[in-house]
């Protein structure tokens, strides 16, 4: 077992231990915080596929987070008011079943990533950053000005959506759902990274010209990764909506894109458990310093600066050293 694997196990089990301990002690709020960490880590795990493995600096992942959130909100609100979503040509009802909502959230955010990625991947570097930001802003303003689903005020989900056999309103049960999904996604991501596709994706990041000379289209590889990335972040958005039982355009804002990127950078770009480390640190800081000072973001900025200047591998890199290939 490498040092990084050990650290990953520690992080994964640590989050679980926090939730279980808090539950046993009756600290419901801490269980909710742990749930938030799992969900935000999932959002970061999505971005990590594009940013960490593919080198695609997307400043628009709030779009997928928000689309996932709205998918959950819209489906739930239709189910709540017994209003069909569509009546023609076939009648489609809303739903409160989480697994259906997740699939819809991933399909919707995946399609959005396909469209945004196909256009954005005509450029790289700074222009890619700006185009992804621009698309996310367009969706943000669309959500604000669309009265059917709350516009600026957002949309309430009422009670939490359902998962067969579990009481999702019980904080620990909901944590278990989010935690399990996070671990499944991280496990699949680990496989992805070692697969032939992972090889091509890493190759596209390192040397796109070389990839072309091997008969592999780097743009297609990157677009595929961007879609997977958007789907994972979309899934986390659906869970986030359920956590708060509320969605609002804030989920789609550029600040949200920035936060997701902060999780990845703090934890370590391209490190499997980096987003978990980053999201955990972020929530700990926000929770402990946010009360002390309004200006905790200043400290966060300072920390980011230090990471970018002195510890490119983020928290994971700091503890486990440089990443090894293959």
């Amino acid at each position, binding site marked *: 077992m490498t040092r990084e694997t050990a650290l990953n196990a520690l992080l994964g089990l640590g989050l679980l231990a926090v939730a279980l301990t808090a539950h046993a002690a009756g600290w419901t709020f801490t269980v909710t915080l742990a749930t938030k960490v799992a969900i935000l880590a999932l959002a970061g795990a999505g971005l990590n596929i594009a940013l960490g493995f593919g080198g695609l600096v997307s400043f628009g992942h709030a779009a997928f987070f928000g689309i996932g959130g709205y998918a959950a909100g819209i489906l739930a609100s239709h189910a709540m008011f017994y209003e069909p979503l569509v009546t023609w040509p076939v009648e489609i009802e809303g739903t409160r079943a989480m697994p259906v909502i997740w699939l819809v959230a991933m399909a919707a955010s995946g399609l959005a990533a396909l469209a945004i990625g196909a256009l954005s991947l005509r450029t790289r570097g700074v222009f890619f950053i700006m185009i992804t930001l621009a698309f996310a802003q367009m969706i943000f303003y669309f959500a604000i000005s669309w009265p059917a689903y709350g516009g600026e005020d957002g949309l309430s989900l009422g009670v939490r959506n359902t998962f067969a056999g579990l009481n999702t309103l019980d904080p620990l049960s909901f944590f278990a759902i989010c935690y399990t999904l996070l671990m499944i996604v991280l496990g699949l991501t680990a496989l992805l990274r070692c697969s*032939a596709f992972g090889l091509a994706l890493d*190759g596209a990041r390192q040397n796109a010209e070389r990839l072309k000379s091997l*008969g*592999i289209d780097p743009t297609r590889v990157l677009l595929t990764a961007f879609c997977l990335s958007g789907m994972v972040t979309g899934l986390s958005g659906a869970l986030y909506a359920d956590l708060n039982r509320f969605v609002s355009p804030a989920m789609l804002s550029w600040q949200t894109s920035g936060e997701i990127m902060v999780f990845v950078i703090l934890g370590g770009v391209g490190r499997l458990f980096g987003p978990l480390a980053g999201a955990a640190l972020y929530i700990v800081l926000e929770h402990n310093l946010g009360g002390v000072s309004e200006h905790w973001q200043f400290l966060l900025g300072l920390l980011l600066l230090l990471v970018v200047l002195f510890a490119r591998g983020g928290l994971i890199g700091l503890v486990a050293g440089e990443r090894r290939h293959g």
Partner: protein
Amino acid sequence: MAEPVLQIRGLCKHFGALRASDNVDLDLMPGEIHALIGPNGAGKSTLIKQIAGEIAPDAGTIRLAGRDVTASGAVARARLGLARSFQVSSVAGEFTVLQNVMLAVAGRLRRTYRFLRPALADTKLTAPAREAIARVGLADREGMRAADLSHGERRTLEIAIALALKPKAFLLDEPMAGMGPEGARSLTHLLDGLRHEAPILLVEHDMDAVFALADRISVLVHGRIIASGTVAEIQADAVVRAAYLGEEDA
């Protein structure tokens, strides 16, 4: 007469006022090593890039195995069987030697879109990759990061990658550059055997290697092919001596 594997007709490419390719005609026949020589800045790399599909010519046609590929991109041409090595080593530095060559095998076998199976456990990828690595003599470097290889080893890795593509034609842009006499000799030996698998268009400054290997030599000066012939013919050609070989001796 057999059909050329690669047939280039009337190729022109300008960079502003500079003629990098000036009405170039060139054939690569089955089983041959066709050397392309010429002074620095003659347009050799530019020609290779146009054949590989990385830059578009202003005029002219490029046919690969009888098929007009002038409008095809670099990916399509690689898939049709063109393997090129780069003048400046262009491997994925963070990858190991094995991973670099496996990527080529994945490209050739169209096994890129497999998401969950560990590539290193896929013998369809590893076995051909190891075979190519062994052929160029890098077997003991298999697990080393490409960035940590010596310059000569990295040049050799380029050849292993091209081999792993099992192409219809090789385009090698100065494979010996900076290799040292020992490396150049063993690479010469390797290329000598390679021509029977697929013909080689060889851009090279090392005249010992060119004279030892080439079935045919074309001389490019200012984007124009000023002479084309056997080694003996080119060595005897007064114009070539003045334009190019003379410079080498001086």
